[in-house]
């Protein structure tokens, strides 16, 4: 072993080392060039995310080729290296099952594109803006300004709602009115509220659905459409306006009613009314 050491410094070895170094430097240069070429050729046709992916791919493929050539110059046998790499891959594969699963899920996610950077998505109880879609995870910023990392595997397995895919959204309001109210009058009041609210879209028209006879109220679903950005302002404004309009029209929003019986179907509780002044006496 020690006998071999001086061999490294012999002229021939030094030339090999020099060649390998030049190959490595060239490799980095060409890889960067390939990455820029991808940007120039496909810059306008691909999304930001796909572009980043292809640029990285081009960079590492070119670099890997040059690294392999450099290793050959140094006298390494590629066949042996590949074999060793194969064994290593199996070992690493077992050790990093979760990461690998996330990586593959990430590839599917990029292929499927259910959302992109800047979209607002909802996964389980987490709602936030997508900051980045990476190989292993997706990073979100929630509305209370927290940074949330969600593994790609979770995204593939669970239900993901993209809130910003379409330009308009529907707001479903569930209302109850007292049994004494005329449903047609309620409908007219609600439609008038929707018409006067400028955030509420005229088309698609507001939807009025009578959902049933509830325990204490006539149950109604009133659905209105809004521009995506106006969804929250509409939710706040229209509920206040409905309450005002109901109050103005004398429409009652009931609270739960309970009737108590003594057990015998028709006989009420025996109640004695004590007059105020007689009690004072």
């Amino acid at each position, binding site marked *: 072993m020690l006998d071999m050491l001086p061999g490294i410094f012999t002229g021939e070895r030094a030339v090999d080392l020099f060649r390998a170094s030049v190959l490595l430097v060239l490799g980095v240069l060409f890889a960067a060039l390939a990455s820029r070429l991808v940007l120039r050729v496909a810059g306008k046709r691909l999304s930001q995310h796909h572009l980043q992916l292809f640029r990285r791919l081009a960079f590492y493929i070119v670099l890997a080729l040059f690294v392999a050539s450099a290793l050959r110059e140094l006298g390494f046998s590629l066949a042996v290296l590949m074999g060793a790499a194969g064994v290593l891959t199996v070992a690493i594969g077992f050790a990093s099952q979760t990461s690998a699963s996330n990586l593959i899920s990430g590839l599917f996610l990029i292929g499927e594109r259910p959302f992109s950077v800047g979209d607002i998505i909802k996964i389980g109880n987490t709602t936030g803006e997508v900051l980045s879609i990476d190989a292993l995870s997706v990073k979100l910023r929630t509305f209370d300004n927290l940074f949330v990392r969600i593994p790609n595997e979770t995204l593939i397995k669970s239900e993901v709602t993209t809130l910003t895919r379409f330009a308009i959204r529907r707001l479903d309001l569930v209302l109850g009115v007292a049994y004494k109210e005329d449903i047609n009058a309620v409908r007219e009041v609600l439609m008038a509220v929707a018409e006067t609210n400028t955030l509420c*879209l005229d088309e698609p028209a507001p939807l009025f659905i009578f959902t049933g006879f509830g325990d204490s109220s006539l149950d109604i679903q009133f659905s209105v459409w809004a521009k995506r950005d106006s969804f929250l302002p509409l939710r706040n404004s229209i509920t206040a306006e409905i309450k005002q309009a109901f109050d103005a029209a004398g429409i009652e929003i009931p609270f739960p009613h309970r009737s108590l019986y003594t057990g015998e179907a028709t006989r009420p509780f025996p109640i004695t009314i004590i007059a105020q002044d007689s009690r004072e006496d």
Partner: protein
Amino acid sequence: MHDNPGSTNSRQWWLPQRVPVGHTLSCQLGSLTLAVHHAVGEWQLVSRHVDEAAAPGIPELLLRAGALEDETFERFLYAGASDGLGFTPLLADRSVVIRPRQPVFLPSGQETTMYLSTPVTLRIHLDDPELTLREVPMLALSDTWFGPSTREGELCYSGKTHARHELADVPRRVHRAITPLTIRNAAPTVLPLDKVNLPVPLLSVYGAADGRLWTQGVSLQRGSDSDMAALKIDAAPPADAGKVSLLSGPRQAQSRAGLVRAFSLLFGV
């Protein structure tokens, strides 16, 4: 009191105004109530909307010495020395979908001209150098969606019309620009005019001597055999308007592709 007699109750309210330092210009322009105060080194602005039904038909401008009475104004810091203030009416930044109040039908082979009015936006600017302070819609318009489904389509503003075809019947309103819309139905079937998508960002605003605002005429022709409708925007202001001056150009340049649109994209049928 009135340093600038030309600015008081002039029908042509879009003409340049002079507001010396320490003075306030109060305007009632249709449904928009606006007050602009020129303070030392800044301009102060406050605007309100009144109900369209209660809006006066003639503009009222009053210049007086003194500050704004309303304290909810916005301040625009300005180092210039100019007193010049300008109001420019612009059309809305999105198309307006207009629905007639009663169902309107156009039988086969018929042609009609309807006078549609759409609310304008007011650009308030200083004249030297020309700086825009603010754009205020003169009437808050409701949003609407115009498209075949909730996935495809475009966001528009919505408007209601009486679909008047006699100019004399069109009420005089400061905050609206009138567009003569000529529709010709060359198809063999009756054309229901449930709603019409008026591409106002492609139109210019003209001011007439009587204080009315106009746009170029728009003509739509429903072809005899296809679902396409040809949309044509006249180059000149309509003859009905009389002598007019150009106040603002279109917000969007008209593309050749925009000339012929799918019929459903214009009429929503």
